[in-house]
């Protein structure tokens, strides 16, 4: 598929209908997932209704890591095969991933207040998530502070690959430091260990976040490509 989309013109044609479709899909999943999570799923026997924050928190956590993994893949492709579209994709995904990471941090912190009695603790998972968030900021800042786009793309790709070391740390932090945060109960070997009635809305919302991520990234990519076209048209006009 990547080879197919590698051509910017074909990509523009594809994304012109793919982005709205993904967006619509995301809306539908949100429309089913949110009421399901808020009204039709059971409260937790320990945490009561606050457990509903989970439906925002956990998908955001998943896809902030997913977005970074996507960026790392795209950066690799961009570095090795010098593919412009890969650079654009990596850059386009970053703000979305950063917002997901911020949502995860904020909701986690909101959730922590009633359940753990603290807004913030420096446990391994929270810390590594914060590190991931900062890495996102650094990545975006690096892109913005180098003028030449091609150079910015390569520099940012190097940073992205180096920062990818943090992903396994986020994922496995709960196993390495047994502290406050929940260990993985869904994505773990041996199958999910969570109440099925909670699993349904959680997975629905996970899908909704994914589609949203896809839609926003495609839209960012499209606007970046449009901007480049406008700029090079202006350049040509200025030079003729």
């Amino acid at each position, binding site marked *: 598929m990547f080879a197919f989309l590698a051509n910017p013109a074909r990509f523009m044609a594809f994304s012109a209908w793919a982005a709205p479709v993904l967006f619509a899909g995301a809306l539908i999943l949100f429309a089913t997932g949110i009421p399901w999570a808020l009204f039709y799923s059971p409260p937790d026997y320990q945490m009561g209704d606050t457990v509903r924050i989970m439906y925002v928190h956990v998908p955001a956590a998943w896809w902030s890591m997913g977005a970074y993994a996507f960026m790392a893949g795209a950066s690799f492709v961009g570095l090795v095969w010098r593919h412009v579209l890969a650079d654009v994709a990596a850059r386009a995904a970053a703000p979305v991933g950063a917002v997901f990471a911020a949502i995860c941090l904020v909701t986690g912190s909101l959730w922590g207040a009633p359940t753990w009695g*603290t807004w913030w603790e*420096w446990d391994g998972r929270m*810390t590594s998530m*914060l590190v991931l968030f900062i890495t996102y*900021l650094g990545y975006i*800042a690096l892109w*913005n502070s180098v003028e030449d786009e091609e150079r910015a793309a390569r520099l940012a790709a190097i940073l992205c690959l180096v920062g990818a070391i943090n992903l396994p740390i986020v994922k496995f932090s709960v196993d390495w430091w047994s502290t*406050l945060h929940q260990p993985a109960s869904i994505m773990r070997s041996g199958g999910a260990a969570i109440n099925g009635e909670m699993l349904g809305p959680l997975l629905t919302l996970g899908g909704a976040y994914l589609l949203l991520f896809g839609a926003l990234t495609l839209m960012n990519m499209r606007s970046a490509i449009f901007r480049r076209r406008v700029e090079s048209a202006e350049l040509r006009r200025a030079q003729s």
Partner: protein
Amino acid sequence: MSAFAATFRRELALMWAGGGAIAPLGYFFGATMLVPLAMGPDRALLETAGPPLVWIAAALSVLAMLERLFQADLEDGSLDQMLLSPAPLEVIASAKGAALWVAIGLPIALAGAPVAIALQAPVERVPLIVASLALGTAAFVGVGLIGAALTASVKRAGVLLALIVLPLFAPPIIFGASVASGEEVFAAFSILGGCALAGAALGPIAAAAALRLQAE
């Protein structure tokens, strides 16, 4: 436009050239983030050690900007032009100081709020911490001007600078930290204000005197 305004404007633009007002905060946030990483998540410990550490981070953030403050001017020939300007060098030095404070002291003071909370300071003390950071960074900048001017012609000045400046940072840190931890707030505040005033008044004068010796 006066020499003060022109210098202030240019310095601020140069300091912000990197990435807007967000930029200076990175160092501060970064430095404070290291604290709990290193100390572990022990809540009680953070609660006592945290707020003072905000002050250390603020001091080091200012310090990080000082090394090249006048050194760069010396190397690229800008210092010659400042010396030849009809405006007193004291005015120019204080414009540089003011720009430094706006570029880094003020954002640090504002950023002090979330950081203090993350480091477990009680919420009602946060406005006090912000105000004291604003005063304290002004004192740091005043003292820092002197150190930066003294070491402008020294190779790898950074460390000599730290040796000169950090002892002078001590009083604001001590009283700032005591504001942050809620002890004798009023007395500490007035001393902090005194430090800031003294720094703002004496810093540019001493710095100008040192700078006049640096050209050759």
